[in-house]
């Protein structure tokens, strides 16, 4: 599904990402962990063609992301709150994303009803613009917007940060359900080792731009990761 080949990203002389080969098969729930500056967001930005690779390329469903835009219809992502349009209300934002993905208002409304619990009554019908919502609530909007239009690849950067405990638990449930669908590939990055081991079947650890661990999640994984980051 997603093939990364010889990709590097340099700023001046500093190499911020260097991945020789990484294969993410279709339907996998893929977790990316690493300290600040490890290259997680850089990898996602390359995957979304927001920055230009210094060398190498990424294929998403046989589409080279830096050469064609054909990956856009089946890929959705939420990297940070700059993905939101501050002067829209949450509903308007969802409908806008819906129109971009050929979903009419009824389709979007039907999808949103599934997330009533997740929204906790703080998102819909609040008569507030996105710019006036709290960080946590903005995040909820951004995350749910990625589920509109049945995408095949869902990319979430740090989805658990800024969320309250209840919402974190609900989000885990949502991601698990999403990952259970065989045709959806979910890519999640996180600083929270517990959460990421809970929802991902495979975990890759990045350190200073390089892959240092690639683990199929098991009961031992959390301890292994904790040991790695403690040392």
């Amino acid at each position, binding site marked *: 599904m997603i093939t990364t080949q010889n990709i590097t990203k340099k700023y001046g002389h500093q190499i911020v990402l260097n991945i020789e080969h990484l294969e993410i098969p279709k339907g996998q729930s893929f977790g990316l962990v690493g300290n600040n500056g490890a290259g997680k967001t850089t990898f996602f930005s390359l995957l979304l063609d*927001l920055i230009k690779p210094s060398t190498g390329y990424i294929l998403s469903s046989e589409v080279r992301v830096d050469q064609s835009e054909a990956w856009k219809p089946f890929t959705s992502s939420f990297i940070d709150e700059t993905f939101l*349009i*501050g002067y829209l209300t949450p509903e308007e934002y969802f409908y806008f994303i819906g129109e971009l993905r050929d979903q009419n208002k009824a389709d979007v409304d039907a999808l949103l009803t599934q997330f009533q619990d997740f929204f906790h009554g703080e998102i819909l019908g609040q008569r507030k613009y996105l710019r006036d919502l709290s960080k946590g609530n903005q995040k909820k909007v951004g995350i749910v917007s990625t589920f509109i239009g049945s995408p095949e690849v869902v990319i979430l950067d740090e989805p658990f940060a800024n969320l309250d405990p209840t919402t974190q638990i609900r989000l885990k449930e949502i991601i698990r359900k999403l990952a259970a669908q065989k045709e959806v590939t979910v890519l999640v990055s996180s600083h929270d080792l517990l959460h990421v081991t809970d929802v991902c079947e495979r975990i890759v650890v990045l350190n200073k731009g390089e892959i240092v661990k690639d683990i199929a999640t098991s009961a031992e994984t959390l301890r292994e990761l904790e040991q790695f980051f403690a040392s």
Partner: protein
Amino acid sequence: MFQHFVKLQWKSFFRSAGLGKSLAIKIVMIFFGIYMLVSMAGLGALLFTILKKAFPDIDPVLKVSEYMMYWLLIELVLRYFMQKLPVMNIKPLLTLPIKKSAITHYILSSSVFSVYNFLSLFLFVPFCVVLVLNGYPTLNVLVWLISIAGLVLTTNYINFVINKSDTILIVLGLLIAGLYAIEYFEIFSLLQYVGKLFYTLYQYPLFVFIPIATAMGSYYINYNFLRNRIYLDQSLKKKTKVAETSDLGWTKKFGDIAPFLQLDLKLIWRNKRTKTQVFVSFAMIFYGLFFYTMEEFAAVFPMKVFVGLFITGIFLSNFGQFIPAWDSAYYSMMMSQNIPLRKYLESKAGLISVSVVLMFLLSIPYVYFGWEAVAINLSCALYNLGINIPLILLAGSQNKKRIDLDKSAFANMQGTGAIQFLILLPLFGIPMILFSLLHLLISFEVAVIALSIIGIAGFAFKKPLLDWITEIYRKKKYAMIAGFKEKNSS
């Protein structure tokens, strides 16, 4: 304590984004500032002679006193729009061992050094110097100047109390208009009485305590007001507006660019800077009156072409020159979403086209000045539609500067680079030169028709032109994303 604050302020100024503005803008801004101050000072120095000539029987000081009321009111309106309230970033200071009264005093007293306070002084100091040179009693003049400084400070603090309240602005506007009307229709000579009041300040230096008292009083009111509101949940909290939603269903008629059109309309309507630009654009419809009513310009056709281009193209140049920076805050989303770049640009072009057509329709009453006026405006509108829209989109591909939408529009240079100045030359210059040449060499009719045909031709080649521009945007994509992310690049 104040010393710490001054240090903080110093750092915030010299490390601020504003200082990193590109050189071209800095030079333009400095020129403009110097120009303003020099003209104020020049006016101040000449004011005595001017008034002496115009009203030989009246003491110039009395005449100035009569208009003092207007001056102060207009200054208040100017401050309302331009002056920023002196809010230090006090949030980090709240939990430190600093007295809140010290913070309040600092905020209020530092506002004394606002540029707007010096504006009046640049006028009145030269005026007073000339007064003394002309044999006016030095003591009286000096104390009068102090009184004026007191009044200026009073407006400074009153402006904070007004605190950007629109109702008070409207009241102020009505007051100025009302005063002027009373004077103009000679209902009642208010100015003379008010003038005498201000003149007393000059005649009897002892009365200087009144302006000083008003300045101190307004300071005190502000102090009380602010001191009790230095809490996170009060004055420091951003005001949130209740969102008004609208369906904008009628945009569906425009087909697949409808979602973008809706987005752009919301962008314009829900953000300060863009909203003001729309109002300014509509107001510019009257710009032509200046030229058409002035005899020196009435026969100069190139000037009329400029007017035509300007009226029909004001929104085009104001809004268009910052495409795609208007979307800079969420540009990475736009680039990773399922959005064909081409449609994005088409929708911008569509929006601007509507504005050109609308402005042309509004300009039809210029037919009062002869059919030539409408002919010129029509050819200019066509030229704007066909040539200038692609041109401004093309220029947009060079935009890399972020715009924060929630900042005010007045004197806001954010997102402005050399390209924004340079683009105006071909935008208005080329058609003006073209028209003038054809008009001189052949005839007025040929010039009008030629301009129209060029516009229509551009319109006919719209598709390949847009394809080409889209390709350029695609190439510049990474640089744009990176540039729009830099918050300090203003």
